[in-house]
């Protein structure tokens, strides 16, 4: 079946059945996952699926429906459901669809060879990464290793004449192990996700990292409740900045549900913080030529040296705010309406190596793991459980577990006083090592 023609045809059918405007979002997926436990194949899962979502406007009212049965009869009855469901909703002049026919050229989204790598080779790779991660004598058990791959094709058409398509691939390899010492247990996991199979990190590297994470926190000590510096490792940068991204959601800003709602063009964070959203980065895991409703993606500075430069918009929220879509319509597959989200998020690297940041810290916490929700996008509160290393006199002294850290976004983000040069651009949330001058740390 030619899905490009089908999606355009379905738009016409929506209009013929009473919609004033319509969008068809059709997704075709193939996926494979392999799990290994203790040198034995634990699970293999494989499937090919497809589905379509209809978004229609009837006299300004929006309706949405989706189905995963692409037979003509089922498609027709599903699109009629969207039209009849639209009568329930409130008319809204901001219900608009994407208009920009352009598509951004993004290199390296699809690797045709992912599917061609023989199953045996993939299974052996998963076995190997587990075996390698178990080689350190401090590592006593495996929680399993795994490989996953997927291919997705997106076909988008709407009644403004947009007709777009792209194809992407992804694969990942990872392992999780347990280190034990007496009654102590600690888990460590590492994985690598890439667009291209050949770009996956070698199993040796992934295994060594998982193994190190499992044993390095053995024999932790407890510290007193105190205020001290906290150095955020790149692995936990999301916990610090994820809430900022949510607070930039243009709709939450309009609703007053964002701690950054009045901060546009104002400095709200340290001048060391520059945040860039990039939907175009070659081979980026969150790169795509157009967003969840067809607007071309771009590279955009959200925060420039601590100054908020702009919010994130899809078409309807931009219309309401009196501006243009920023290409940030996010979509969790064909079953969901477009929301708002970022693509690849980069934090500009700073001047220091992570070692220099540690040695410049007389006393503090090198944060390697944090639990909880990070910064609350509504109130700006931050609170979480913390693990990592204690730093004394500019050196790592001992591991720590069972601590808590807390503060408010304003206090924490303004207190960022050193940033590292260690940004891994292959992460979809790429953050360097960041030091916060002082935070409340809860201990004994």
């Amino acid at each position, binding site marked *: 079946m030619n899905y490009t023609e089908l999606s355009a045809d379905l738009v016409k059918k929506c209009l013929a059945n009473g919609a004033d405007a319509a969008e068809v979002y059709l997704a075709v997926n193939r996926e494979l996952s392999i799990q290994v436990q203790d040198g034995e194949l*634990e699970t293999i899962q494989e499937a*090919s699926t497809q589905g379509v979502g209809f978004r229609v406007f009837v006299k300004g009212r929006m309706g*949405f429906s989706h189905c995963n049965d692409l037979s003509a009869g089922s498609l027709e009855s599903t699109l009629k459901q969207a039209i009849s469901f639209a009568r329930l909703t409130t008319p809204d002049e901001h219900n608009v669809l994407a208009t920009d026919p352009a598509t951004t050229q993004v290199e390296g989204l699809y690797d045709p060879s992912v599917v061609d790598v023989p199953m045996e080779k993939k299974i052996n790779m998963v076995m190997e990464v587990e075996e390698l991660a178990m080689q350190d004598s401090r590592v006593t058990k495996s*929680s399993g290793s795994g490989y996953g791959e997927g291919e997705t094709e997106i076909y988008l058409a709407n009644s403004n004449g947009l007709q777009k398509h792209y194809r992407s691939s992804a694969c990942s390899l990872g392992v999780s192990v347990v280190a034990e010492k007496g009654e102590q*247990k600690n888990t460590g996991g590492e994985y690598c996700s890439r667009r291209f199979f050949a770009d996956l990190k070698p199993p040796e590297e992934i295994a060594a990292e998982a193994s190190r994470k499992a044993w390095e926190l053995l024999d932790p000590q407890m510290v007193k*409740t105190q205020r001290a510096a906290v150095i955020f490792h790149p692995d936990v940068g999301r916990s610090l900045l994820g809430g900022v991204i949510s607070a930039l959601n243009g709709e939450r800003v309009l609703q007053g549900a964002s701690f950054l709602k009045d901060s546009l063009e104002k400095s709200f964070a340290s001048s060391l913080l520059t945040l860039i959203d990039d939907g175009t980065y070659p081979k980026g*895991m969150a790169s795509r030529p157009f967003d969840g409703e067809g607007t071309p993606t771009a590279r955009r500075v959200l925060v420039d040296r601590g100054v908020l430069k702009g919010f994130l918009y899809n078409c309807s929220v931009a219309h309401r705010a009196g501006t243009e879509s920023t290409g940030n319509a996010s979509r*969790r597959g064909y079953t969901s309406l477009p929301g708002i989200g970022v693509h690849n998020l980069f934090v500009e690297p700073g001047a220091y190596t992570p070692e220099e940041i540690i040695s410049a810290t007389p006393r503090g916490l090198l944060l390697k793991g944090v639990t909880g*929700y990070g910064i609350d996008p509504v109130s700006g509160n931050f609170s979480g459980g913390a693990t990592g290393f204690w730093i004394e006199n500019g050196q790592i002294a001992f591991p720590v577990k069972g601590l808590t850290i807390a503060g408010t976004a304003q206090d924490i983000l303004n207190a960022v006083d050193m940033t590292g040069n260690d940004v891994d651009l292959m992460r979809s949330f790429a953050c360097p090592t960041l030091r916060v001058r002082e935070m409340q*740390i809860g201990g004994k």
Partner: protein
Amino acid sequence: MGKQKWIVRDMPRRKFLEIGLKGGIAVAAMPALLSRLTSCQTGPLSPGGIDMDKETLGRVIAVALEQGGDFAEVYLENRISRQIVMEESRFKSGLFGISQGGGVRVIAGNSTGYAYTDEIIEEKLIHAARVASYVARNGGSVQPVPLEQASRESFITVERPLKEIADEKRIEVMERANQAALDYDPRIKMALVDYNDEIRGRVIANSEGLYLRDELPQMFFIVQALSEENGRRHLSRERLGMHMGFEMFEQYPPEEVAKRAAREAVAMLGAKEAPAGIMDVVMQNGWGGVLVHEAVGHPLEADNIAKKVGAFTGKLGQKVASDVFTMVDDGTLPNMRGTTNFDDEGTQMQRNVLIEKGVLQGYMTDILSAWQLNMKRTGNGRRESFRHFPIPRMTNTFIERGQDEPADILASTRKGIYVQSLSGGSVNPVTGVFNFTCREAYLIENGKKTQPIRGATLIGTCMDVISNIDAVGNDLDFGPGICGKGQSAEVSAGQPTVRIRGINVGGSRS
């Protein structure tokens, strides 16, 4: 986002349990069972084409076991869902979804093969069976038993089936909730009302000769309220979720859900910074049970026990908690969010006492982990949809009612934190280390609830928390939620008011 799908399962950074509410749904308040749904219907389930005869299903199972294997199963599913979202007093969107498909699973030794298809036709299921049978090269050989319809006791009653409810009725309960939230206090600036219902049809057939089918309704209603005063904001949340018909809103009026959300939003506007350090914690009855759901429930799911990595591995029959602590997982509580008549492998739901007076009594199993551990099946084999194979999951999990008066528990606590509701949290099932974020909490000073505090985190290990519970109230209550473990599942969590001595509380004040 799409990339989530490729993150390897079982990585430690997986995020568990979402959020919650204190649902105020007491088991004692359940209505008499009026019209139990039969769990083995004979008529057609739905127009979705899920009707497949036993002979066809038997042929698929036979193909699945052609290469060998110990067990094979076909699971067919059809879901019809509705979601309506109201924000800023406007009906923002209406979503209607149809999702159907079938999955074939083969177990050979410790290996599982699984494949699924969107199309419930013999050809596609046979193909899935061949793909799933890839693991069967690992040995085993079993002869499938001819399929025979089984019957299961039902715990779900429906008075007003969703199919007979006009969409205008759905809209009406949302409007009532929205208005009640806004009317509660002028500081409530906005309500977000999220209405969800779903009808899920299932067919399960396996090589043990089991053939079962049923159809269950599900409702989930969420009200969030945004308060603002002097630049301070709080977004609160309350949820209501049951397996029942539209009569849910007669028993639990939408206004009540909205008022509870609005009350929290206003109460927390005055919150001050939380203290940091090790403190006694009193947890109010209800959804707070999600703490033991995470801290103790997940480590008692048998998959990690079978891998010998779980925190409770090898501790069966041992004293693991204080004498006053009894914990139960019960999938038979009438109409509750974690209740079904049988799990997604066809095992009858039952009441499972996990820890009795501090002694570990059992784990929660699915078919595979029950085999691996040589234990009985407990009815905990659940799956998110036909796109997932079953794994051990909780249903309705709670701390059993105790002897203490809730007021006495508070009055006898000199200093600490009173947790009225939790947002949610997570646990590492191997180490038992958990964390929780408080949604609504207060200081306890001289046995009294005083100042509201914001942004408090509770952390600890499962073994410590259940050893340090020293008071259990007589006011057991439940709340509904969503549990995530690579796949999501509808659950409820419950507890009476309890006191936990010495938890590490993370606040921003020293």
